[in-house]
């Protein structure tokens, strides 16, 4: 039974690693092809920036057009970019990996199921919270943030397509890198802990390197991913307030109402708390697993000492 479980977990972690690696490669490929394509404009005629600029609503004599709020102008990176094709290209690049990223993220509900079935020792509730938080970001918020700008039907308050696409891409990028460390680490750990690989030096060294990476890379990747998620959700706020997507209004037979903008605000308030708790927890784990040495030179020694003990 234990053998079956670890074989399954090895397969699961390897498959997830492969999937995220594929996303990462695709991301690089589609970004570079978007930006080097000379026929981009012809391929994506709806998205040319001339249309984007033309959507500024015409004012009437009684209500003149107020220039867009400055911070939105400032945060619109294309404002500084000389190339006129930046905005649609980022959205097109995001589209190419969107469905795959959503599918993979949704599939991680399996990790909650593993926790419920006690295949892995972790809390089902925490796992589920993390799953729902991330799935909301990628499947709900990122869709909203990139879909509306793509349609050109946006108001001046929502005008920052490149910003939305950039945050969505950044979220996927940082997740993909983190997962391309976490999954191979988990897969290799299963092999390294088995009887079969106990004396195979190459697997043990690989395990040590990946363990070090697993408990070090987060120092940079977690805050980066967190900031990208926050930027994406903040970017969603104008859409959430003006378009009321996913809202349920009273009256209805089930006597309930839902306001996505309020939900987003709750998430935005709760997210930093969750992030700091997780970040501190990971530092504690790092201290535990890497022997408390803050630098890379010390951790190797600690791992080696542990290895000696085992032998």
């Amino acid at each position, binding site marked *: 039974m234990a053998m079956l479980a670890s074989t399954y977990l090895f397969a699961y972690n390897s498959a997830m690693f492969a999937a995220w690696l594929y996303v990462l490669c695709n991301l690089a490929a589609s970004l570079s092809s978007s930006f080097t394509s000379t026929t981009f404009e012809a391929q994506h005629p709806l998205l040319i920036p001339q249309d984007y600029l033309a959507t500024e609503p015409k004012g009437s004599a009684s209500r003149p057009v107020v220039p867009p709020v400055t911070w939105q102008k400032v945060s619109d990176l294309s404002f500084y970019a000389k190339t006129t094709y930046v905005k649609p290209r980022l959205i097109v690049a995001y589209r190419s990996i969107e469905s795959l990223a959503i599918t993979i993220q949704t599939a991680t509900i399996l990790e909650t199921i593993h926790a419920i079935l006690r295949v892995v020792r972790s809390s089902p509730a925490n796992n589920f919270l993390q799953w729902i938080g991330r799935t909301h970001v990628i499947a709900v918020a990122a869709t909203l943030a990139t879909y509306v700008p793509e349609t050109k039907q946006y108001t001046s308050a929502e005008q920052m397509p490149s910003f939305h696409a950039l945050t969505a891409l950044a979220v996927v990028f940082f997740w993909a890198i983190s997962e391309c460390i976490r999954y191979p680490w988990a897969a290799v750990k299963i092999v390294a802990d088995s009887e079969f690989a106990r004396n195979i030096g190459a697997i043990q060294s690989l395990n040590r390197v990946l363990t070090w990476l697993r408990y070090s890379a987060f120092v940079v990747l977690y805050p980066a991913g967190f900031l990208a998620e926050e930027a994406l959700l903040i970017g969603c706020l104008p859409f959430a307030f003006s378009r009321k997507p996913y809202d349920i209004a*009273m*009256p*209805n*037979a*089930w*006597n*309930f*109402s839902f306001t996505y903008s309020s939900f987003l605000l709750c998430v935005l308030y709760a997210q930093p708390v969750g992030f700091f708790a997780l970040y501190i927890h990971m530092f504690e784990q790092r201290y535990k697993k890497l022997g408390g040495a803050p630098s890379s030179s010390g951790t190797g020694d600690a791992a080696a000492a542990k290895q000696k003990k085992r032998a």
Partner: protein
Amino acid sequence: MKLVIASRSGRLVVDGGLHIDAGETVDGLLAEMHSLSLKKLVRIPGKPILVPERQRFTLPLVPGAVTADGKKARPVALASGKKLSDYNLKDGDTLHFKDLGQQVGYVTVFFWEYFGPMAVYPLVYYLPKLLYPESMLQNGECPRHPVQAIATAYWSFHFAKRILETFFVHKFSHGTMPIFNLLRNCSYYWAFAAFVSYFVNHPLYTPPPFERSKWALAGAMLMQAGNLYSHVILANLRPKGSKEYRVPRGFLFNYVTCANYTFEILGWLLFNVATQSIPGILFMFAGGYQMTLWAIAKHKRLKRTFDGKEGREKYPRRFIILPPLI
């Protein structure tokens, strides 16, 4: 004799050990620790006064110890009412000490956690103009359906009943709990009361057919009666002052281990049939989930205590909480 008192991580809690007569009781040990803390002789950050309720002593765990069924052994806690000799404590033995933190009485916690919902729900019913925007009201008035009035009465009656039961029916086997539980329980009940009340007393509320609501709430009142009767049975289960376990018998207890929870859950189910709202259904599921966990634990404990071996009573075959499901 001298006992070494240490924290679970091995830090000494009482310098020079705790001197106590070998024939003393566990309560005597708690009292001694209390008086040491009054003299500020206990090494706990902040030098709190350790009343007996906030102390927990456990026997140190033998490394690698396992229980009969092969699971990792849990440390044994010294129980109030027993003697030190019951645990074979000898001179120089070590006891692990844990400060359970500031304690608060069960009655206090129960009163405040039930008082909130009892008061909050009718506030929303009677003062809608303070809560809902002008645009939702009709000519400045909140339209009211009869079901909202009787649901409010039912809700407040339910929590008033719980408060009265706390004072006059329940017998608590523990005296206190950590003060954090007061905050946690109050947040749960107060927030859910506001959540349910906001939607059921909403100006745009859609009532189910009144005939249905009327019968459902009448049924819910019967469930309240059943719940009260179950609590009376539980309170009279053991003789005064005794702490031994008894098999609950009589009424629905002959078929279900936690009949009181059965009535409680059915009561909320009927409340939801009458008022039909998502928040009410969520409240039912949250409460039902917690009660099911408690019921499973109690059922297990009763089955373990009354295993039918060595002349002990055998626990009869019963549902746990919700017949015919579990």
